[in-house]
């Protein structure tokens, strides 16, 4: 299993780095926030990303994508993380993987080419409480004619107010907490009975609360048997988000390191103080370990390995902790200026916490990792 990038992946990474530093610097996110942009991302920039093929990196070539694999998308996510790029890439990838792994051939043939061409934005509507709880779904779906009617409330739906279609995790049988009885229903955001309220989050990225009142949709996959597909989709989301968080952690650390070398107090650079040196060195270690788990997890997706679940939890838990550490220390080591809105370092801390709660916090993933190891 390769823990190093091949030549093509390196080229893609370099291209993504160039693109993000030129087209989506943090100042873009700041502007979207300050102007309360209605989309929460820049449509023209997204169009450029689509033209680079990013929307279809993991979509198979048969369906109009690049078929370049998760390692490819992972290096793009990492570079997007460095500049805190606001885009529907993650949410759409999660939605598209639901179609890829749960949808019929007909659904794949119809929808995936639209994802690759950037026309169709998707997202996953899962959470119902403030804590990640994949099988705790209460939201119901009932068969009605050839489709299903969905009733219930969803929260923390990434890009929920801009996605064209929502992959709703709904219950067709059983009780909240049961693995059995979960189904995936694809619902148009514009369908009657769907009401979307955008939630403004600390990281200035997009989320929404969505209420379904008998909204009509179509089934993805088999009724009541969605748990396995859901786990897979979530693991894909966790690993891709971990890749983004890795990029953000590195950038945040490098900015802090630069500050330690230039900021002077008591007539010397503060980076000469051992109290700060040791903490910087420890962060470096955590980041080095983080790089390895993200690469291994991305490889596992591409190899369709049977270790995907444990590696997804390994990667997400580690990146939650590393990004939190690096962003908190980033603010602390910047001192007073780190507390100002004018300075960018605080953006990393805000994004770190929102990312932590997306697709499972560390307690969730440590518990799950232990389960995968049989204890």
């Amino acid at each position, binding site marked *: 299993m*390769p*823990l*190093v990038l091949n030549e093509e992946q390196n080229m893609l990474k370099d291209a993504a780095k160039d693109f993000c530093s030129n087209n989506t610097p943090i100042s873009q996110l700041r502007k979207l926030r300050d102007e309360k942009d209605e989309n929460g991302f820049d449509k023209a920039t997204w169009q450029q990303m689509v033209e680079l093929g990013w929307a279809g990196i993991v979509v198979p070539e048969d369906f109009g994508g690049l078929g370049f694999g998760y390692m490819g998308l992972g290096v793009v996510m990492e570079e997007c993380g460095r500049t805190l790029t606001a885009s529907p890439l993650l949410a759409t990838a999660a939605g598209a993987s639901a179609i890829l792994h749960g949808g019929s051939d007909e659904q794949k043939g119809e929808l995936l080419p639209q994802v690759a061409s950037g026309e169709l934005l998707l997202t996953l509507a899962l959470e119902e409480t403030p804590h990640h709880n994949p099988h705790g779904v209460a939201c119901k779906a009932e068969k009605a004619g050839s489709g299903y009617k969905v009733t219930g409330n969803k929260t923390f739906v990434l890009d929920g107010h801009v996605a064209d279609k929502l992959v709703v995790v709904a219950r067709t049988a059983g009780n909240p907490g049961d693995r059995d009885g979960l189904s995936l229903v694809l619902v148009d955001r514009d369908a009657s009975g769907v009401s979307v309220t955008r939630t403004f989050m600390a990281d200035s990225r997009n989320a929404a609360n969505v209420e379904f009142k008998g909204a009509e949709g179509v089934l993805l996959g088999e009724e009541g048997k969605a748990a396995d597909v859901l786990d897979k989709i979530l693991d894909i989301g966790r690993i891709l988000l971990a890749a983004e968080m890795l990029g953000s952690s590195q950038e945040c650390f490098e900015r802090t*390191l630069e500050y*330690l*070398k230039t900021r002077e107090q008591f007539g*010397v*650079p503060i*980076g*000469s103080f*051992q109290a*700060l*040196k*040791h903490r*910087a*060195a*420890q962060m*470096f*270690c955590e980041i*080095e*370990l*983080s*790089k*390895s*788990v993200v*690469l*291994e997890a991305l490889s596992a997706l591409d190899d369709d390995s049977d270790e995907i679940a444990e590696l997804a939890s*390994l990667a997400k*838990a*580690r990146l939650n902790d590393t990004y939190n550490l690096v962003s908190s220390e980033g603010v602390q080591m910047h001192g007073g200026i780190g507390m100002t809105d004018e300075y960018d370092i605080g953006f990393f801390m805000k994004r770190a916490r929102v990312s932590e709660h997306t697709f499972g916090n560390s*307690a969730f993933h*440590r*518990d799950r*990792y*232990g*389960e995968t*190891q*049989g*204890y």
Partner: protein
Amino acid sequence: MGALEEFREEARAWLEENCPASLRTPAAESEAIGGGKKQEYRNPDAKLWLDRMAERGWTAPMWPKEYGGGGLTKDQYLILQDEMIRINARSPIGGMGFSMIGPTLLDYGTEEQKLEHLPRIVSGEIRWCQGYSEPGAGSDLANVQTKCVDKGDYFEVNGQKIWTSGAQYADWIFTLVRTEPQAPKHEGISFVLIDMDQPGVTVRPIKLISGNSPFCETFFDNARVEKNNLVGQLNRGWTVGKRLLQHERSSISGLNSGGRRGRYDGMRELPDVAKEYIGLENGKLKDKDLRTSIVTNDMNQRAFGLTQKRAMAENESGGTPTFATSVFKYYGSEIGKERLELQLKAMGSQSLGWEGDEFTDEERTLTRTWLRSKASSIAGGSSEIQLNIVAKRVLGLPD
């Protein structure tokens, strides 16, 4: 079939035929073979296994054949390791000859020195120990005071070394000595090899908190050193000594094994021990608090192993240590210590038996191993020194 697969088949067949059955079990610490003239082979198969492996150069698989090594590539070496693990074959021999002075001589030794010393390490004839620390030179290693004076056709050494691991079993010692007392601290040091079989060298074991004596004090009283045993240039020994430290740190952190377990060979995995002593409830360890700590350590261990593999993959040349060594030394020893602390908690009061039949071998071994593990973040440059090195050499933070 690719060349590597051919090698695997060949190695597998050879190991099957040549590894004695009694050496296909985990080795107790007392059974580890370090070689040298004082080594006793209580199990004659251990000597047979050593000789057979040494004959192929597989005791030092990646060293060049002209010095007795196996001449294997990195990939072949990893295959050999996998195949040994597959049949539970013990490592035929280990020690500082292999992990420290050998690699250092390959980097800095003269052709004559390589030809004289390396084959004797490979065969297990000579066992080495390390003469670095002194009573006044611990973390401040460059403060060595052991004097080495030019006597015309030989050097004469006087002084004291401390924490010389395994000195009571060793035949030769590699040392840092002061050859120019007036020069700045780092510039008057030389790296010399000393034959310990002479009246001027005395060894006294030190009893440690674990009850064992893996370390010694070594005294030099007009000890004689032939001039061809100077490694590198006179007064430039710090450079050689630092390189050796990188090899030492790689070895302590298990970097050379490419992510394979090795440091606590023969010990059961922590979760298995915890399952036995604590028990499961609904598939999870009953002690929730301890479970979280064990899972966290397990996950960090996994991430660390993957990072070792990544370092190997990034380093085409086959594991020459870089500044990353300090990262591995620091992190590896810290999670290793934590693992043993957690094992104490998991096994409860049974983990703290000192001696006697009321405790199993595993329990008594853990007590001693736990205590000994505290040295891993002190020896070879303490964790604090490793963080200093990362801050300075990797991150470029100012002095």
